[in-house]
């Protein structure tokens, strides 16, 4: 336990409604670590906004919950909703393409190995962290500066879900122009799944997958802020977070980072010193 920097004596965040007061292991020595580059943060929030728009409009397209009255020529509600849905989808796809590029171009917390948990080490960490959550012993969780193992799984699954959602979405979208590029590019999908109606069903079921993901995602990130005090919420806004220098981390050698007394933010780029 190396105490570097100054103790942040007496300062702590009580958390939302003071919830964190009874929980947090407050004080200690902290340093600011830069995790998420601006492009990644932009992608996160653009994708989040798109997904919200896509879910709201998607449920309307699946089961129209508003109706217009009067002459049909006076309205274009479904038309506009579909337009919004397709536009948001296009933006999401663009974000996805940039994200794939960033899997190679990003820093070590943003690249492939930090995301797809396939090694035995990762599996052990996953079991350990899942057990910690289930037994309410946060201190037994694996200790990572970047993504926790469960996060890695969650985001990998989210990315796979997104691929399937986009593929099924484009398949349906292409139907209005039979023989067109999109129609032909996704012509293999309906036979594979067993018809356009099944494509529709898969797309619809996945929408619920996003909602369930959102619930868990928000809970676990807020929880890590209040219980584990790791500042994940702020990290996706500011790009970095305070990391206790009193702990060791499985994915990051904190001792190599120059100590910075909290709360003065410094931004050591992990690419440089890793």
């Amino acid at each position, binding site marked *: 336990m190396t105490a570097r920097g100054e103790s942040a004596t007496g300062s702590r965040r009580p958390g939302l409604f003071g919830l964190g007061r009874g929980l947090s292991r407050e004080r200690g020595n902290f340093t600011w670590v830069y995790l998420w580059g601006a492009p990644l943060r932009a992608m996160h929030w653009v994708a989040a906004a798109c997904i919200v728009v896509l879910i709201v409009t998607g449920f309307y397209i699946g089961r129209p919950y508003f109706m217009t009255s009067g002459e049909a020529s*006076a309205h274009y509600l479904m038309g506009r909703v579909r337009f919004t849905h397709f536009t948001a989808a296009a933006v999401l796809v663009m974000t996805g393409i940039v994200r794939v590029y960033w899997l190679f171009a990003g820093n070590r917390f943003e690249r492939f190995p930090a995301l797809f948990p396939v090694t035995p080490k990762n599996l052990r960490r996953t079991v350990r962290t899942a057990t910690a959550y289930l037994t*309410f012993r946060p201190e037994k969780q694996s200790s990572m500066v970047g993504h926790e193992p469960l996060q890695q799984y969650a985001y990998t699954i989210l990315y796979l879900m997104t691929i399937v959602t986009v593929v099924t979405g484009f398949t349906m979208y292409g*139907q209005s122009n039979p023989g067109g590029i999109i129609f032909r590019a996704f012509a293999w999908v309906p036979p594979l799944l067993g018809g356009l109606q099944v494509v529709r069903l898969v797309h619809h079921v996945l929408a619920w997958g996003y909602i369930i993901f959102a619930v868990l995602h928000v809970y676990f990130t807020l929880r890590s802020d209040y219980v584990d005090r790791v500042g994940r919420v702020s990290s996706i806004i500011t790009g970095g977070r305070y990391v206790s220098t009193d702990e060791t981390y499985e994915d990051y050698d904190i001792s190599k980072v120059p100590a910075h007394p909290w709360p003065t933010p410094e931004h050591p780029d992990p690419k440089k010193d890793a």
Partner: protein
Amino acid sequence: MTPSAYAWTEGETLAQHFESHGVSRRDFVKFCSEIAVALGLGIAAGPRIARALESVKRPSVIWLQLQECTGCVESVLRTADPTIGDLLLDVVSLDYNHTLMASAGDAVERARQSAMAANKGKYILVVTGSIPTKEDGIYTVIGGRTAEDLLREAADGAAAILAVGACAHWGSVQAARPNPTGAVGVRDIIKNRPIVNIAGCPPIGDVITATVVHYLTFGRLPAVDREGRPLFAYGKRIHDQCTRRAHFDAGQFVESFDDESARKGWCLYSVGCKGPATFSPCPIFQWNTRTSWPIGAGHPCIGCTEPHFWDTMTPFYGRLPNVGGFAVEQRVDTIGAALAVGAAAGVAAHAAATVFTQIRRRKATHQVPETGTETENDDG
């Protein structure tokens, strides 16, 4: 032996045949122009079709009815007001069709054999009905031979095959889960002959007429999509040609069959219309000599031209299918919402349990948080 009332005699051209049955040249050219339009060739192709058809000699057609309900034969042949198309179909048909032939037994089977032998490699084979494959095909046996056996034999000498109706296309209701007879379509048995699928349950007669005319005019089958259906008829979605589409785009939907919206003729999407997933010429060709069509009459499309529509388009009055025979439809939203609420409740419980265990442990260690000496690792 020929069932037609308008027998087309050997050696007679179609022009001569029509003339002898009181069809005027004018009507014939008009018919050819209509067919040209139906085929997507444009009205200008009418005279060319007329010229080609005029000189056509009586084609031989063998019509096999396998595992089916005879509905397609009814749809094609029964009509209150015979049109030239019916006449054409009636006459090209039928060196063999066991429902319509007057004779029975050995005589018909011999007629089929001799027609196939005489026109080997040249006749058109029309198939309606599916082919049962389980238990060696015993579910359909005609004259002591299974459907598959008959089909293979007839396909062998055929120049082209018209698989008419959903049964011949992919098996239709017989092939719906659990498909007890192992019913399949023609394309699943015959791989080495050109096959065109005239999809539908039953198909529109005009599509069959136009396909036959295409074959007689150009000597080959029309261009088809990946389902083997002629593109001129099945190239577009119902939804994109639908007369109610304006109401769809405007957000005006029928919610139940007797509501005000139904009376106003709004879109049938919410009562399960499968128009968005169905490729068919119904809105354009329409039914019963262009009287009406299902959506026009206020009933949602059930997607009868798409393969496996009994499994994937059902329930007919719901938007999402019952996949795997398990009624997820209408329940998918309930299940989804239940899981989402469950997840929310789960995390709330988890959060509460965390607070509870943390406070208890903190008390147990008797540590006073405000001393300012403890560090993260000491805690909990």
